[in-house]
């Protein structure tokens, strides 16, 4: 609740400034546990904002879109876009700036020390009947869930999003203003990736065949990814057509492999692709494998430092050059 209060105070001040065009934040959703992104333009709207473990979205996705809330990029003109970010989300801004996707001076970054967000699928499975607005808070190792008139506590580990269990730091990087809260730091040894790597080629092939065959190519993963922002996606091209429109395992594999490779050294592991997948495809397994390789081969972690260059335009003299012909 305190984060919400601080956030509203900041928003009121920020939205009153002449150089700010709008603010992208979270507000109460339409039912149950749902929270939705919102775009505010007036200080009087600040009290719509909320922040809780239900704020799962990575709002930086909107920064690269042509239309942001009621405003188009033309309406925004020279004004800055203020955006609320969690630790993982803030890394997206670092990557976007490093590759000139956005200009840092065009955004105003409001960081929040997030104690962790829920895994919505798990939460809604456990509390399936939430229709009236439900609330979730997280203190220490316990979620407090108020839903349909009753309050329940659940251990953090049971409902928290998997990405939060390996979050190296929940302190957002490169922010203009911060809503502070408890700081945490966990180690990430890529145990999940190692498990998959440990399987035989046939097993891995079977694993992906099973999962990717289910893909219906709704492109929710691509569109929800803040780092998939090409003005024309290679998948949509017809001349030449790189990926066929038929929806089957080979084409689905091509789609997901192409997307994963394009995110190598860029993915900040916000987990949005996997969260939104209507077919429950473990997409983060692909991104995590690439993150591990990038870490091991180049000692690089995307977006961890706002001053860092993009991986593929950086070169260090001590690089062993093993990957170059």
């Amino acid at each position, binding site marked *: 609740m305190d984060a919400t209060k601080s956030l509203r105070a900041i928003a009121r001040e920020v939205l009153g400034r002449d150089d700010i065009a709008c603010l992208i934040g979270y507000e109460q*959703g*339409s*039912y*149950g546990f*749902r*929270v*939705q*992104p*919102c*775009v505010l333009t007036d200080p009087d709207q600040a009290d719509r904002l909320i922040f809780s473990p239900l704020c799962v*979205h990575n709002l930086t*996705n909107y920064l690269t*879109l*042509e*239309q*942001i*809330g*009621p405003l*188009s990029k033309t309406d925004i003109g020279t004004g800055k876009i203020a955006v609320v970010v969690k630790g993982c989300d803030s890394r997206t801004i670092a990557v976007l700036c490093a590759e000139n996707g956005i200009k840092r001076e065009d955004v105003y970054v409001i960081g929040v020390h997030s104690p962790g967000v829920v895994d919505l699928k798990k939460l*809604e499975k456990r509390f*399936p*009947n*939430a*229709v009236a607005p439900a609330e979730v808070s997280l203190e220490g190792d316990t979620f407090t869930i108020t839903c349909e008139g009753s309050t329940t506590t659940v251990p953090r580990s049971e409902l928290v999003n998997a990405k939060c269990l390996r979050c190296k730091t929940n302190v957002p990087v490169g922010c203009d203003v911060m809503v502070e809260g408890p700081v945490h730091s966990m180690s990430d040894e890529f145990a999940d990736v190692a498990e998959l790597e440990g399987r035989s080629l046939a097993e891995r092939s079977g694993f992906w065949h*099973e*999962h990717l065959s*289910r893909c*219906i*190519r*709704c*492109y*929710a993963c*691509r*569109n*929800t990814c803040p780092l998939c922002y090409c003005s024309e996606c290679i998948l*949509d091209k017809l001349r030449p057509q790189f990926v*066929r*429109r*038929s*929806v*089957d395992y080979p084409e689905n594999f091509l789609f997901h492999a192409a997307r994963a490779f394009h995110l190598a050294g860029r993915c900040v592991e916000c987990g*949005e692709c996997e*969260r*939104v997948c*209507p*077919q*429950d*495809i*473990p997409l983060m397994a692909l991104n995590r494998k690439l993150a591990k390789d990038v870490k091991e081969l180049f000692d690089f972690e995307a977006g961890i430092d706002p001053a860092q260059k993009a991986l593929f335009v950086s070169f260090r003299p001590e690089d062993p050059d093993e990957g170059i012909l």
Partner: protein
Amino acid sequence: METQLLKKERLKDFLKALGGVRLIAPVAGGAKTQFCEVADIDAAEFDLDDYTATTKKVMFPQNETMFAFRSIDGGVAVEETAVPAKTVVFGIRPCDARSFVTLDPLFTKDFDDPYYRQRREATVLIGHACQEPTNRCFCPSVGGSPSSTEGLDVLLTDIGESYFVQIVTERGKEALGGAGSLLSPATEADQQQKQAADAQSAAKIRRSVNLKKMHEILPKAFALPEWKELGSKCIGCGICTYNCPTCHCFDIQDEGTPYQGRRLRVWDACMFPEFTVHASGENPRHDRSERLRNRMMHKFSYFPRNLGFISCVGCGRCIELCPVNEDLIQILTTVRDLCNE
């Protein structure tokens, strides 16, 4: 309507007794329940409580080969698509069955679509009444109910130890011909149990939307500036349309080489920018909010005006799955309020 009783433990025998047909049912296993062909009824684990698996693909597959072609000496050989085999869909929910009622005139009225029609004619729908509607269901608002028989040939309702079997159509009666010995007549007490089960399910539905005159309100609301805000959260993916049982837009593509290939029909979605882009490069539905408005208009205004009913069955999948909580109930309610209706 004829009513019968089927002992629950005889369900698999019942399905086997339907004879040499292709059986499609919600099968558990793997990471997600899917409606798929059941090769071995004994081995299959049916998941009748799953509310996410879509059934649209049964009549309107995501990939449909319209014909295959290959060049031969002196011309082209064209291979037509085979006529679909006789099929029984078991375990479909009432809202999904109603979706075919909305699709029928579309695929058969102005233009006879042989692919859809032949499949529809070859398929018997055996429904399973919803016992546990979800927190996103709103079928009563669109004229449905968790126990609706509309579009179904047979409906099974769980009444404890047995299924209450409603034989809705002649087709259903015919399909159940071989299973007659497994059915027993329903008694007055069974009837009462069935009514109680229906009432219990209906009471669990708590979301609703007022659609009165919506087909007239929406055209008036077309130019409202608020659409920009209503549609601004949308990220432009196809999750709502691809999971919608009534969305039916498609694209036609040729795949292969000039010498050998196939003409294919695949799902398409009005939420993709490419859907309306012209050869000139101009896109009349430039913004995401314009595309979202079109989706609302299509379902709740164009469809009622052209065909007399709305094109939504209240399954709520678009609401549940939307990555950013674009909620058609919220959108339509806001539009109504803005128009003071």
